């Protein structure tokens, strides 16, 4: 008689290198996760106070996983703005991830499409900064090593869990959370702290400074277009600066 028990699947791969990289990823994202928690709380409170139904807000919290576009689109959804405006706003605010996805392709391009999509979905802002600092070079052929896979998931799942817990706490404890203390600014400090170690050479510092100035000068533009302008500036100035200082 055939056994009815399912084949036993381990929750985590047995590979020791994978496991220690996973644990290290969890530790390395802990600081930045403070910022994720702060933004999750802020977003959760904003969702609860938006006047939208609890089921809808919970679905958004669990599925969308993008604080900037959630915060920007909440008021639009609440007033019943046309769907294309909501989608366009989210698209512009997420445009930076399109650029990040080129980088991720170098690391994970050799894996199947489903896995590539799952990994990129989990890769919010803090993940790229930490991962690239630890692994400046992709593995050959875009087939991530067990260390890289474990480290990525350690970073990404910790960050995801921090986000979900904080976002749900924000929704259910909206009245008890003192947003006036400047909780949102902890998220800003976290992104700043993640960006600073990425200023690795003179050309990058130069393009980043130009991008920062442009982001401020165009801050009044709608839908986060100032971030798009800043990225475009970084491309132009960066290519110029690389030719000047990093002749390949």
């Amino acid at each position, binding site marked *: 008689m055939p056994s009815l028990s399912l084949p036993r699947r381990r929750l985590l791969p047995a590979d020791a290198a994978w496991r220690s990289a996973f644990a290290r990823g969890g530790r390395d994202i802990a600081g930045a996760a403070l910022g994720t928690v702060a933004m999750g709380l802020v977003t959760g409170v904003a969702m609860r106070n938006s006047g939208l139904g609890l089921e809808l807000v919970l679905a958004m919290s669990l599925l969308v996983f993008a604080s900037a576009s959630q915060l920007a689109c909440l008021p639009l959804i609440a007033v019943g703005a046309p769907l294309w405006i909501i989608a366009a706003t989210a*698209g512009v605010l997420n445009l930076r991830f399109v*650029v990040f996805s080129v980088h991720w*392709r170098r690391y994970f391009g050799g894996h199947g499409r489903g896995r590539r999509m799952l990994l990129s979905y989990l890769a919010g802002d803090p993940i790229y900064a930490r991962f690239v600092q630890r692994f400046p070079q992709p593995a050959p052929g875009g087939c991530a090593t067990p260390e890289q896979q474990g480290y990525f998931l350690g970073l990404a799942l910790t960050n995801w869990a921090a986000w979900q817990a904080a976002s749900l706490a924000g929704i259910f404890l909206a009245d008890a959370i003192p947003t006036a203390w400047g909780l949102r*600014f902890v998220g800003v400090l976290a992104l700043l702290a993640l*960006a600073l170690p990425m200023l690795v050479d003179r050309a990058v510092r130069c393009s980043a400074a130009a991008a*920062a100035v442009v982001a401020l000068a165009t801050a009044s533009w709608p839908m986060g277009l100032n971030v798009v302008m800043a990225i475009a500036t970084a*491309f132009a100035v960066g290519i110029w600066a690389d030719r000047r200082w990093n002749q390949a």
Partner: protein
Amino acid sequence: MPLPFAAENLLPWLAVLALVLVTVLTRSFFLLPHGEPRLPGWLRQGLRHAPVAALLAMVMPEIFLNQGHLPADWRDARLAAVAAALLYHWARRGDVTGTILTGTATLLVLRLGLGWA
């Protein structure tokens, strides 16, 4: 025939669905094609400058602008918190956790202790 849902109840759900789709599609954009995507030359060249620029672009207005204006009073808890975080970062290269905690502590002390804006 009456619809099972009133349109105004359905619209927010469609909006959430749209947000999910936009998030998934933008994050996986260049990971979707099976073959290696052919990128224009300028995109390849400038690519390494994009991530840090995007992160800084998101924080700059939050640090320096208050309802669209530069702060009139230099006693601004956010500016002081960023200054403290930068000093810590330069003193201890690359310690992300310490940088965030230093900035947060400065912000809280100045806002709650001294009542700065």
